[in-house]
């Protein structure tokens, strides 16, 4: 067990988890995924990973 978690990896993992959750909800017909919804979600996930990565490198 690491003393401190790897923050960029943690953010990336949670972001991918959230994206997978959205896809799973669509496959279970709980939501109706369209490009108008998926495109911003995918961009937000990619952006969160890049920001976390960039902030960790600045330290």
């Amino acid at each position, binding site marked *: *067990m*690491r003393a401190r*978690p*790897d*923050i*960029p*990896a*943690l953010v*990336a*993992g*949670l*972001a*991918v*988890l*959230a*994206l*997978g*959750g*959205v*896809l*799973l909800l*669509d*496959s*279970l017909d709980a939501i109706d*995924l*369209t*490009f*108008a*919804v*998926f495109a911003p*979600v*995918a961009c937000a*996930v*990619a952006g969160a*990973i*890049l920001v976390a*990565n960039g902030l960790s*490198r600045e330290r």
Partner: protein
Amino acid sequence: MDVNDTQGNGPDEEPTVEGPQAPPGEPAPKRLTRSRGDRVVGGVCGGLGRYFNVDPLLFRIGAVALVFLGGAGILLYLAALLLVPNEDQAAPIAPGAQGRNRALVVAAVVVLLIVAWPFLLFGGALFAGIGIPLALLVGAGVLVWWLVSGEGPSGSAGDIARRAALGVAVVIGCFVLFLVAGFGAAAGPDWLIPALVVAAGGAIAAGAFLKPVRWLVPPALTIALAAGVVAAADIDFDGGIGQREYRPGSSVDLRDHYDVGIGQLVVDLRETDLPKGDVPLDLDVGIGEAHVIVPDDVCVATDADVGMGNVALFGRDHGGVDVAYEDAPDAKPTTTRLLLHADVGMGQVRVNDSRGELYFDEHEFGPFHDDDPDLTPAQPAACVTG
């Protein structure tokens, strides 16, 4: 950056090799090197600015302008990247070689410009057609490898080329993975790929506390992207792959549902003896085209959903993403009205009559083609207008 900085006096610069010590009172010989401290890509423009003692921004603007004027900028930049050493790798130059070095640089630039000029004049578009995508691919490769490994675009030309190649390999690998995951999402159980993405996300998050598995992020995102596109476009591969063409002879032969996974689905009703009143027809295509040809005396009510692509209804084109097109005209008494429901993931829904067949034969028609009201045929006369 000032020329004096090349002597290694800058506060944040590595010392640079500029040749043997010049005799007291004489300036050290200048060499054209790629700048370490002032670089955007490979330090070529920074080095040129320092060498000629002008703002490197001018060289950068010139390079970008030459890229868009036929791609000569790419050629020149790649040549400089390969031929001009980094400032910390520059070999000492012998006294008296400065003039020869400068002459060689001038000659090389002149030769490259002479070589590039015909491309600018005659083959600019062709050269740009190859050069710009190639440069974008190399640039994307460097960027991807930077993101994946943390190794930036620095070092020798060989290092940069190696990183670009590794980055391009990652891009190609992700593209193949995208296709495989997309096929799996469309052909397999709906929950399978999303569950894999959730599992990958959980593994990455857990790894942050145990042992980071950052390498898993790009493939997980690629798989998620493929599954997302398939889900958003509502693509499924039921019905197989290929071209299917149906020409039912009567309403008995006409099925109420036709589907194709990938390919073209054509339902030609021109020879079909259709009953009066409403006739339902349901088409489902994953990726490709759903094409319905109706008799001239049939009215068509259309309800079409296209994830990415267009609906071409009697020549009127409606395209984009998440296209939901609905057109429900009333039919004249004692005529047939076809109730068409079409669902296409990526591609086109096309409906026309025999006039439209002639129209399509004579006019190139494709996705996002501008309508021409004088040329495009209208809804059949069997529909009630107004």
